[in-house]
């Protein structure tokens, strides 16, 4: 019972602290903007731990964060092997192939407004479909190993990146294109010096959406069959054995990988599109 009481007390104290902090001058600084959510995150973990221990929730329903952390540390080699299989082999290779293919397709249809008008509605439509459903088919075609996961990722990331790249290539305005024409720039010169740089904010928007999709695709495809390594495999296998602390550590790794992947792409975007108003402050 004392655990429960402690959790409630901690919650109240942390909340009071956060309310104070958010009305003080600190939040206008960069550090303050990090401290407040960090306190909130720690509070959630403490309350979780307190409730699980206080109410004696069995570990097969919800393990406490401390148990998950301990499992995460002891199972580090397994988690690393799963991460390599799912993220580096499956998601990352699929992401590179899919985004590259989408980019090249967008360039290829760039000269034909007819194809663009046709492809954009189709691409938008496909981007809203539950494409993960294609996973069982691709697992059948490419086998259980990472190739089938990469194939699922390719299909999932293709359309968002394609749609964004096509609309990005249309983003430069006619005044700028006219200027290039007065320089008597060729199609390729205009493309590389004006239209691709102008398209970058759009392209990165698509690339950022695709990071999340890539990881989801790689994990869900493993639910349909995989070798005995991989994050999706480990999640289903450990759920079956009720080893929920392992499942949670796997989810923690997936969350970290997902946000790091997104962060890296966002960082590259910052470097590439430094001129864009949204990046200047």
């Amino acid at each position, binding site marked *: 019972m004392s655990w429960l009481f402690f959790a409630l007390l901690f919650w109240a104290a942390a909340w009071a602290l956060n309310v104070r902090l958010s009305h003080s001058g600190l939040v206008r600084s960069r550090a303050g903007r990090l401290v407040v*959510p960090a306190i909130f995150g720690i509070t959630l973990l403490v309350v979780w731990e307190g409730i699980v221990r206080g109410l004696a929730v069995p570990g097969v329903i919800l393990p406490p964060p401390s148990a998950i952390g301990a499992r995460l540390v002891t199972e580090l080699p397994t988690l690393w092997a799963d991460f390599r299989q799912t993220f580096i082999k499956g998601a990352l290779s699929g992401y590179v192939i899919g985004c590259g293919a989408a980019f090249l397709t967008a360039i290829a249809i760039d000269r034909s407004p007819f194809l663009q008008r046709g492809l954009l509605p189709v691409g938008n439509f496909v981007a809203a*479909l539950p494409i993960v459903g294609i996973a069982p088919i691709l*697992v059948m075609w490419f086998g259980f190993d990472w190739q089938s996961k990469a194939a699922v990722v390719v299909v999932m990331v293709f359309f968002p990146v394609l749609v964004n790249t096509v609309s990005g290539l249309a983003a430069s305005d006619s005044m700028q294109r006219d200027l290039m024409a007065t320089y008597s720039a060729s199609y390729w010169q205009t493309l590389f010096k004006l239209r691709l740089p102008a398209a970058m904010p759009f392209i990165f928007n698509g690339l950022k959406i695709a990071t*999340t999709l890539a990881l989801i695709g790689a994990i869900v495809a493993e639910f349909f069959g995989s070798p005995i390594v991989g994050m999706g495999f480990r*999640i289903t296998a450990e759920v079956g054995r009720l080893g929920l602390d392992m499942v949670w550590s796997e989810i923690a790794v997936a969350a970290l990988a*997902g946000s790091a992947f997104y962060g890296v792409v966002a960082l590259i975007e910052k470097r590439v599109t430094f001129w864009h108003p949204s990046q200047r402050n």
Partner: protein
Amino acid sequence: MNRILPVLTVVLVIVVLWYAAAVQLNKAWVYDQAERAGEPAPGFGALVGLTMNQDRPVLPTPHQVVVELAKSTFGMAVTSKKSLVYHGWVTISATLLGFVMGTTLGVLLAVGIIHNKAMDLSVMPWAIASQTIPILAIAPMIIVVMNSMGIQGLIPKAIISAFLSFFPVLVGMVKGLRSPDQMQLDLLSTYSASQGQTFWKLRLPSSMPYLFTSLKVGIAASLVGAIVGELPTGAVAGLGARLLSGSYYGQTVQIWAALFAAALVAAALVAVVGAVERRTLRRMGMAR
């Protein structure tokens, strides 16, 4: 009119490519059969004929998928386990329940966030960060844990759906409720409007375009959540179960039919939200 022709062309190209791919992928089986029967390999014309209507093709042709879709939608009693209407309804009901739960929660939390600075600073960074993590990975765990607590069927799937639709709605709604500019807020404060009046008369109406945009994202995510939520229980019922049992037994036509059914359901759900959006925005004088 100048949109329809290009779209039809693209669709036609896709269908043609699909037939070509079907011939290419299914021909191995035909050659294998011919070799076993001791016959010479069939010529191209015969090959095309033999690859169009196989029972278990590597890639079913479009007409096979359409026939299977029509058969399992209209040709079966609605209560039959082979009817896609039955499976589709199982998935749609979980999707809708989860969508309503997730949207309600998202809107309520957004209202809290715009009125409470501490909540804004604590919750919002996590809500945005959560968009980058593969939440779908928790689906099997939710199903099994709730199963061990004695809760089965609709509710666990709806919770996964709710989880997936919650974050887009929250983020979109916070943006929408903040969209009135300072001039408009100042005007309401010169009217000495209370916080509640500002909310109902200014913030909520001007958030509608943002709400509908995120609702469309949310309902598509809900459907994905419901389909993935049907996988860990084994093939019981629902479109996800059809995908899974098809992949267990090598019934490729069944997988493709389920996939197309899921696509049609997704398109229909998004279209319904879109229609409500157009009506609402037109009534509110916001239609573009």
